[in-house]
C-alpha cells in the first residue's frame, strides 16, 4: 500500500475524524468504526505475540514460530522443567478465564481472577508503601533553612531562595495531604490549611491544563502539516 494511495487513505481518515468539529456525522462514524476495529485487531495481535506467546513458551520472542510451545518442548525433551509446569498452569488459568463467555460455567473465571487480584494486592501492599509513600515522604523531609555556599562563603540570597523553595515544597505537600483528609471537618486552622492545599492543587491543575493544551495543539499542527505537506504537497 505504498505512495499516494496510502497517503490518500490516511488523509481521508484524518479529514473524516476532523469533520466531528462541525457535528457528529456518518463519515465520522465510519472512520470511528474503522479505528475501533483496527485498534482491537492490533491489540489482539500485540497481546498474542508480546504477552501470550513469549510468556507461555519462554523461548520465543516476537518473531518466533508458533509451533515452539511448551508442549513442543515436551515432545522434544520428554520432560517438563519447573518453568514449563508454570507455563501450563498459566495456560490453564488463561483458559479458565475464557469460561466467562459461557454463562453456565462462568463462575470458573473467578479462580484466575482471584489469582490476579490476590497477587497484585499482595505486591501493591508492600510495593506501594516502598515506592510511593515512603519515597515521597523521604524526599519531602527538607531543611527549612538551607544555607548555600558560593566559593566557600555563605550566600545569603541563595540561602533565602533555597529555603523559600523548601518551605513552599514542604508547605504544599502538608497542606495538600490535609486537603485530602476528610475524617476531620475542614474548619478553623485545619480548614485554612486545607484551603491553602486547594491553591496548590489549582496550580498543579493549571500546569497540567497548560501542558495538555500545548500537546494537543502540537498534535493538531502535525495533522495539518501532514495534510498540507505530505498529502497535498501545498507546503514546500
Amino acid at each position: 500500500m505504498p505512495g499516494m494511495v496510502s497517503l490518500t487513505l490516511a488523509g481521508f481518515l484524518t479529514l473524516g475524524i476532523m469533520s466531528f468539529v462541525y457535528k457528529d456525522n456518518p463519515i465520522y462514524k465510519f472512520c470511528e468504526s474503522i479505528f475501533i476495529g483496527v485498534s482491537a485487531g492490533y491489540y489482539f495481535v500485540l497481546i498474542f505475540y508480546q504477552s501470550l506467546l513469549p510468556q507461555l513458551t519462554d523461548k520465543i520472542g516476537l518473531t518466533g514460530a508458533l509451533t515452539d510451545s511448551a508442549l513442543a518442548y515436551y515432545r522434544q525433551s520428554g520432560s517438563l522443567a519447573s518453568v514449563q509446569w508454570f507455563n501450563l498452569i498459566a495456560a490453564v488459568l488463561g483458559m479458565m478465564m475464557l469460561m466467562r463467555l459461557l454463562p453456565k460455567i462462568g463462575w470458573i473465571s473467578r479462580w484466575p481472577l482471584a489469582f490476579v487480584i490476590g497477587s497484585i494486592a499482595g505486591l501493591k501492599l508492600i510495593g506501594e508503601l516502598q515506592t510511593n509513600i515512603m519515597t515521597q515522604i523521604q524526599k519531602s523531609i527538607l531543611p527549612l533553612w538551607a544555607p548555600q555556599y558560593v566559593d566557600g562563603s555563605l550566600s545569603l540570597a541563595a540561602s533565602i531562595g533555597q529555603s523559600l523553595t523548601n518551605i513552599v515544597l514542604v508547605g504544599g505537600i502538608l497542606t495538600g495531604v490535609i486537603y485530602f483528609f476528610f475524617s476531620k471537618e475542614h474548619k478553623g486552622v485545619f480548614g485554612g490549611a486545607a484551603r491553602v492545599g486547594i491553591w496548590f492543587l489549582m496550580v498543579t491543575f493549571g500546569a497540567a491544563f497548560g501542558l495538555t493544551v500545548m500537546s494537543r495543539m502540537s498534535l493538531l499542527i502535525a495533522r495539518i502539516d501532514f495534510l498540507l505537506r505530505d498529502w497535498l504537497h501545498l507546503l514546500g
Partner: protein
Amino acid sequence: MRKEIPLVIMVACGVFMAIQFFVPHELPALIYQNLNKTVQVVGAVALVLGIVSLLSLHFAKINRRQPGYGYSYILIAFFFMMAASGFLPAKVNLGSFLGTGDRVEGSFYLNLYNYVLTPVQATMFALLAFFIASAAFRAFRARSVIATLLLLTAIIVMIGRVPIGPFVLGDWISDLADWIMAVPNAAAKRAVIVGVGLGILSLSLKMVLGIERAWLGGGR
C-alpha cells in the same frame, strides 16, 4: 464453594506476594517470578476477553438491526482484517497495493498500522484541541481566587514553554514556568501521590485479608 475457593486463592496469593519481599531465598524468588508471569498471561487473556465481548456486542447489534448497525459491519470487518494481517506467514504477498505477510516494514499489518491506525489515533487526540479551547474559555473566566490561580498558572506555563514567550517577555517567564513545575506543582503532585498510595495500601490490605469481596460479584 464457588466463592470460598476463589477467596482462599486470593488470600493465599496476596499473603505470599507480600511476604516474599522479606524472605531472601531463591525458592520464593522463583515462585514470585513465575507467578508474575502467570499474572501477565491471565491479564492478556482478560484483554482477549474484552475484545471478544466487543465483537459479541456488535454481532448482537447486527442481529437486532439496531440503529447504526451498518457501522458494526465495518468495525468487525476491520477487526478481522487487522487480526488476520498479523498472522499472515512471511511468504504471503498480497501485491504492491496491500503489502506482504509477516510483521515487517512494507507488510499488510504495518501498512494498516501506519496508514489507518496512526493517523486516526493522532487526529482523535488532536481533535481534543478544539474541545479544550472551548473548555478553556469556560474555565478561564476567572470568577474566584482558585479559578484565577488556575488561569495564571496555565498561561505562565504555556507562554514560558514556547520560544515566543522568552523572546517577547524575557527569560524570567521560562524561569518562572520552570519554578512552578518544579516546586508548587511537584508539592501538590506529591500530596496526591501520597494520598493515592495510602488509598491503594488500605484497599490492598482489605483485599488480602478477604474483607473486600465486591470483585466476586453477585449471584452464585
